[in-house]
């Protein structure tokens, strides 16, 4: 089976899974497909799925960014800290975004210019950025943001659709265009497929990696700020552990952890699968911890199943792995 065929069947599998989950959910609640519930579905995990979009690019590029959840926390804490110091809210938001950009570029510098493994660098970031966030706000929650800021997180903008969802939709389109029909997108695939070949053919690998890590930090910061707006208050440990869900979404979408393959359509489908699954489990009154377990199992299965399929199809064709 060709790579393209396998990819298609992977997305087919996701689609089938989605249909089953939605069907079961409708069985549970007749109002499931109502507009209110669907908006709610997106709204509850909107920050994670925003970050999953840029994570897709990072992983296709052959790297990983484990620090995103901490960058989300850091941006929110920088914002809250600036706000508490008396900075006007718009400036505080810019400060939060800049902190995210700086964190991302810092990761990128060590990966692209010093040549360290991104796993180790972003693990250090995962711990370190969370630490900086804790230094800034210590252990008290910061709230009482201006009314308009809280509304950004909660108020519907177009019909029932909130600002966060609009931002998600815009980012989805921008990243889809970048990945699938721009020069940068092709470079992302080439570098992910074969770093050495990319280097020898004169591609500016460092620039591409810096761009991706910078973008990853900035978008994670944006997501963190939206999260702060939705919750209406900021704590040092906010968004802790989100990296599990984010990476699961990307890998379930058929993106290879080794880089070089995957597409945004698959990730889009996997976002829908995971959102509906979580919502469905909520309807069936399954608690948050079990939900996380199921997501964890899904993460392992999303790599195990294609591997097993490969092994079986190779055996079928009489080849040894």
């Amino acid at each position, binding site marked *: 089976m060709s790579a393209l065929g396998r990819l298609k069947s992977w997305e087919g599998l996701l689609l089938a899974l989605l249909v089953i989950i939605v069907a079961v959910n409708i069985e549970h609640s007749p109002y499931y497909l109502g507009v209110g519930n669907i908006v709610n579905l997106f709204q509850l995990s909107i920050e994670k799925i925003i970050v999953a979009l840029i994570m897709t690019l990072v992983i296709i590029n052959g790297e990983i960014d484990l620090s995103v959840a901490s960058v989300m926390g850091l941006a929110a804490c920088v914002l809250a800290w600036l706000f508490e110091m008396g900075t006007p809210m718009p400036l505080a938001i810019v400060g939060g975004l800049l902190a995210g950009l700086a964190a991302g570029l810092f990761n990128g510098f060590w990966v692209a210019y010093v040549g360290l493994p991104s796993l180790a660098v972003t693990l250090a970031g995962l711990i370190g950025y969370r630490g900086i966030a*804790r230094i800034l706000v210590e252990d008290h929650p910061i709230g009482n943001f201006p009314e308009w800021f809280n509304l950004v997180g909660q108020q519907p903008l177009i019909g029932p659709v909130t600002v966060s969802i609009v931002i998600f939709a815009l980012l989805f389109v921008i990243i889809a265009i970048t990945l699938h029909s721009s020069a940068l997108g092709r470079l992302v695939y080439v570098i992910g497929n074969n770093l050495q070949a990319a280097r020898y053919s004169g591609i500016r690998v460092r620039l591409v990696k810096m761009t991706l890590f910078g973008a990853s930090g900035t978008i994670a910061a944006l997501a963190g700020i939206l999260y702060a707006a939705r919750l209406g208050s900021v704590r040092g440990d906010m968004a802790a552990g989100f990296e*599990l869900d984010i990476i699961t979404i990307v890998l379930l979408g058929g993106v290879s952890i080794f880089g070089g393959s995957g597409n945004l359509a698959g990730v889009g489908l996997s976002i829908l699968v995971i959102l509906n699954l979580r919502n469905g489990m909520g309807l069936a009154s399954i608690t948050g911890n079990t939900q996380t377990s199921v997501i964890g199992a899904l993460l392992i299965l999303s790599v195990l199943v294609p591997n097993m399929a490969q092994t079986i199809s190779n055996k079928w064709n009489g080849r040894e792995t």
Partner: protein
Amino acid sequence: MNWLQRYVRPEQVRELSLLLLIIVAVIVFGSMIDNYYTSRTFNRIASSVAIITIVAVGQTLVVLTRNIDLSVGSIVGCTAYFTGTLLAQNNDLHPLLVVLAAVALGSVLGAINGVFVAWGRVPSIIVTLGTLAIYRGLLVDLSGAKTVTTDSLPSWLVDLPRVNLFAIGEFDFRAMFMLALMIVIIFQVGTSFLALGRRLYAIGSNPDAAKLIGLPIKRLVFLTFVLSGALSGLAGFVTLARFGNITVEAGRGLELEVVAAVVVGGVNIFGGSGTIMGAMLGAIMIGILEQSLFRLQISEFWRDALLGLLILLAVASDAVILQRLRSLWARADLKFIAKPPDDGPAPERRAPP
């Protein structure tokens, strides 16, 4: 310089510099904190290091083969909780049986990781990120969010952390610390001198070559995950003894500290180099940092930020400085081979083509 290069390997330079860093840290903290150089500080650090060290030994074995085990925190939590519940229900269980139960449970959880990594060909970071969530989820579900309390545990276990094997002056060498030290020595000897241990290095430094010379890679990788699970199980028992009160949150986030200890200790995250001893030094460094910052009071929140920086520095110094050292050593070796002996004619040597 030559004699140095003959007797000291670059990895040992790395460990010596960490030792130096530890001494510097102790001096710096000593000048900032009153009454720092007392037996109390030593005892505190020693008992907090024990848990991280035991888990870090297992983690080192896994990392040597180019894998990673992020589920250790959840395994420690599971074993601490379930062993505690078991013991609370049957107070007269034999101590050895309790330890065995903890190790067995840890091994089973580690074996599950190992099967997926070795035979399922799923990258270890994905498997263990998944089981990190799954094991914790199972713990929360099966426990019904109840807590193991100290008063339900038998007295031998509650007293265990204060048991002294021997003391030098005021410095107590407690059972837990000695247990960790013993494990470090056993595994250090095992990885240095046993064929099995050397094979782990072979797999990590060049998996393709290891496969070509016929090493049973799958079985060895599986074994490292089982050992990592077993040691985490043992650490779970130590956690139970040390804290007594075990909630479902026990051991959460421990995996970060352990990976930090291993990386700071000079074990290459891409496998093939590093020692158990180094991992222990890493754990001690982190223990000193934690306990000293705790004593400084103002900066408890600085711990994570400093830990992140420490990991980054460790990895960066590995990449930049250690690479240079290695090539320096390699060049010295070449010179040693190329230079003909002074006495007598040069041995027969094929001319370069």
